[in-house]
């Protein structure tokens, strides 16, 4: 059965309606910043996270064996180690090279220099790093990976990138800009819908216990229980509010009237997670993805068309 021409036109117009590239600039700069902070914060433990030498938290070969079970093509740090050892470099040297190139890729993304190459390098190195340290990875790595995957495929460079300014490259296709922004928007809708729906199935999110436990669970207990207990009456409404905010995100993030409320609510939630649980990088990546997907067109600049 063929879709009707009218339906096809609507789908086509929705995906390829055209938009400015400001969302891509926000995604590029945000992800670049995220990578720089990832490198800085993991620097002290970098060797211990990836070395094969006994004395690491969990040796790289064990983690990679677990991750690549049934997924042998997944990139990993061992590939770089093997290549480097072939030309006589030590494991530690190669690990620092990987760290340095990842940092450089992050800085290039922030500045907008060699955008496409930097995005590909960042995606590949970051993916390799998080797969080789999968037993020490959490949501932030997964979401950074998602963002880098879309960034790498999107029509770079955006007009704010130094690449565009120095080389005077013409703007990329507005149709493709809107297509990739739509993909990111729909992905966020799936993320929040399933996250909210799964929470709604647990009794703990209805009676406030899950929120309490999340905030008192080591090592995320940044605020003492003595302080938290003063807000005990807020746990039920806040817990339910989180579930409803997330589950209804795919509905209320689209209309202009409710978009600002849902966006501010979601970013405030991630801000609170960052401050109260110490998950600063997680808060940053979620803010970056949300702002790039839905936030940037709330700030109309230069009268450019927005979606």
């Amino acid at each position, binding site marked *: 059965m063929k879709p009707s021409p009218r339906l096809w036109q609507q789908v086509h117009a929705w995906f390829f309606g055209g938009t400015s590239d400001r969302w891509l600039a926000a995604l590029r700069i945000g992800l670049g910043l995220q990578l720089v902070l990832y490198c800085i914060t993991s620097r002290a433990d970098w060797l*211990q996270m990836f070395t094969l030498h006994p004395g690491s938290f969990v040796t790289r070969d064990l983690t990679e064996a677990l991750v690549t079970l049934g997924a042998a093509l997944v990139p990993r740090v061992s590939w770089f180690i093997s290549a480097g050892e072939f030309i006589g470099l030590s494991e530690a040297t190669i690990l620092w090279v990987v760290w340095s190139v990842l940092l450089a890729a992050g800085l290039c993304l922030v500045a907008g220099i060699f955008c496409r190459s930097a995005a590909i390098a960042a995606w590949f190195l970051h993916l390799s790093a998080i797969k080789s340290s999968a037993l020490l990875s959490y949501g932030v790595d997964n979401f950074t990976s998602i963002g880098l995957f879309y960034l790498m495929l999107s029509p770079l460079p955006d007009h704010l990138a130094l690449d565009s300014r120095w080389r005077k490259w013409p703007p990329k296709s507005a149709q493709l800009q809107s297509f990739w922004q739509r993909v990111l928007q729909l992905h966020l809708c799936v993320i929040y819908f399933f996250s909210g729906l799964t929470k709604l199935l647990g009794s703990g999110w209805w009676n406030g216990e899950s929120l309490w436990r999340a905030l008192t669970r080591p090592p995320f207990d940044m605020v003492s229980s003595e302080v938290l207990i003063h807000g005990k009456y807020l746990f039920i409404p806040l817990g339910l509010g989180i579930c409803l905010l997330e589950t209804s995100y795919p509905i209320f993030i689209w209309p202009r009237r409710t978009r600002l409320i849902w966006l501010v609510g979601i970013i405030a939630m991630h801000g609170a997670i960052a401050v109260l649980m110490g998950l600063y990088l997680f808060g940053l990546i979620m803010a970056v993805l949300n702002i790039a997907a839905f936030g940037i067109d709330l700030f109309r600049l230069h009268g450019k068309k927005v979606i």
Partner: protein
Amino acid sequence: MRFQRAYLIGFALHFFLLVTVASRDFFAVLADGSSYLPAALEPHWRVLEDATFTVLGQKLPPNNPMRETIAFYLHAAGIEAGYGYFAPNVPYSYKLVFQLTYPNGTTEYELPTVGTPETGMRLPTLLDFIAANRYEPLRQLILKMLAYSVWQHHRDALKIRAVFGAVITPSIAGYKRGDEPTYAVVCAYDFGFTKTEPPRP
């Protein structure tokens, strides 16, 4: 127009995989009985979860090219896992304590140490994995690695006992009653290391 159609087909495949993975993890939560839905429905959720395994090629032999390709794509796009963070309920946290015994009989206690608070936020993933893993030799191997990383800083220790347990924090009502967090031991292993093993570089 043709390139746009190709983009849309690519998106449809990508979105299908994304939703299938998210559904797989959602059905897994329902099937393992951790939600408040009736237990009688659990076999049905298991069937649905099973169907997503089939769709994602996870029932094919490990070296099957189709399975490898799908798995690679899922990892590359960052969509290999669902989005049930802290759901349906927030799990217990786990703690690992090392008891170091010295030749003169004295004992010391150590926790796994990391260089930055950010890495500290990553340790729960490892501890959750140890707790969820039921394969005893793997659990023991990981704990031995962690014990060895501690021994690197205490090379005079004769023996290290790794005690792994769940930290059960009190509920809101329990906290108001004055309950304290309790520590329930899950497993404990003794490890001995000799100084002939090379120090960390």
